């Protein structure tokens, strides 16, 4: 089930493609900003910090804060600097292959 999102989407339409985030599937707008589309899908926390394990989500949306880090194809990337494409497999950093822990 889609988690509740605190965002209102002005544009409902747009072609959607399937991606997985943290093992769950989502249909996101193709070509959209990945961080924005995950937020719109109701994801609040993108990762846990390595220091204290605190939850973090996008803060700056302009590639400066690195709080939106995710892992795509084994590479840690800033979600706010990526675009949505079909079949993306996105993991939380440090959680690759850990399952639903």
């Amino acid at each position, binding site marked *: 089930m889609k988690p509740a999102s*605190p*965002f*209102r*989407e*002005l*544009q409902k339409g747009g072609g959607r493609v399937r991606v997985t985030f943290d093992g769950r599937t989502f249909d996101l707008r193709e070509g*959209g*900003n990945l961080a*924005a*589309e995950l*937020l*719109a899908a109701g994801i*609040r*926390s*993108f990762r846990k*910090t390595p*220091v*204290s394990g*605190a*939850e*973090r*989500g*996008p*803060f*700056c*949306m*302009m*590639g*400066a*804060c*690195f*709080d939106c*880090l995710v892992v795509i194809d084994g*590479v*840690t990337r800033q979600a706010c*600097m990526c*675009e949505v494409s079909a079949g993306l497999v996105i993991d939380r950093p440090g959680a690759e292959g850990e399952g639903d822990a």
Partner: protein
Amino acid sequence: MLDADLIVIGAGPAGMAAARTAADAGLSVLLLDEQQRAGGQIYRDVERVPAERKKILGDDYLKGRALAEALDHPKIRHLTGAVVWQIEDGPRVAFTRDGAAGLARGKRLLIATGALERPMPVSGWTLPGVMTAGAAQILLKQSGLLCERAVLAGSGPLLYLVAAQMCRAGTPPLVLVETQTPADRRAALRHLPKALKAWRVLAKGLGLLAEIRRAGVKRYIGATGIAIHGQDKAEAISFEADGRRHQIACASVLLHHGVVPNTQATRSLSLPHVWSEAQRAFSPERDRWGRTANTDIFVAGDGGGIGGAVAAKLQGEVAALEVACDLEKISHVNRDRAAAPLRKGLAIELAARPFIDRAYPPYAKALAPADSTIICRCEEVTAGDIRRYAGLGCLGPNQTKAFGRPGMGPCQGRYCGLTVTELLAAETGRSQEDTGYYRIRPPLKPVTLGELAVLAETDLKEQEDIS
């Protein structure tokens, strides 16, 4: 290796305007920008914004469209999605794009990397659901997303712009928690006569306030003691105003108390920087053409001091004229003739700055946060940690790294550097200028071994091609 007369880093107003002016003068221009489309943050995605979003964003935003379209010029090569990670004398620029690293060499370099939000460390600012006001605006411009049940907190014109845009879209913020005080407004009045030269800027501000009022959004003035609450996401904000403590449940908190020059690139080149007391930030030293202490390197736009989008565009054009003159494409006389009206426009555009800076100063408690507040988001270092380092004899930001890890995370101090400077200056009794800033070393953005490997291969191939 890519060659160009002028390399421009950043496709915001300064970079776009500089690229076109230089190209018109006959220079070959390589424009490198991290985003997939031109515009920078202020004009993000302006070329493909859907019609219904235009009304919400307003005319000033749509002005960016002409600048972006002007990049369509045979002398301009615009590389989108190009992330610059090293700048060297030469000037030479290393970047990654599409998973491969690339190198470029220019006769001149213009750094137009704009501004960052001033860090606003308050209790709870690291929780998911807390973003900068600028981030909320980017979500709106690029993705058509509006924060519901949001509180805006801090001070400055951008706070009003974002609030007004949210009102226009039919999703007004719950409240505005404003940190400037009536005393700030009184102190700003002496700058008002000069600011009237930029009456359009002032009129726009008043218009935004009227929109916010009409939408019935409550504004608290002189708020202090701001804290954000929640377990694993922002759920409420509390603050003191009107002589009592308030707590408001919300889904998002949008923070803003001004923007500051993004000096990562100029710092990495060890260029001299100066402290501006009025803007409470460092900016690289530059002459009236935007030239830095390194004669081949220029800075235009907010990266050299905050002036806003229109000033950035004009500065970009001024710098491009000087580069064209350097490279003997235009004469000194023609350079000066073309620059004169730009300078006049710049003077008008900047006339309102002293008033705005004084009326909307940074939130004092975020410049000197409580001991328990995290100031380095990456490494979770607190204000108390920094004060403790100062007590142990730490004088400057670089030295803090001997005591802990502030500024050593992936953001490289972008969102803690100024706070560390302010905290150390307050503890040691030295000026911010003397306290200094982090030394910034490449890579400016992370680069992977895989990306470097592609660069090595193409480099080898180029050598073979030549031999």
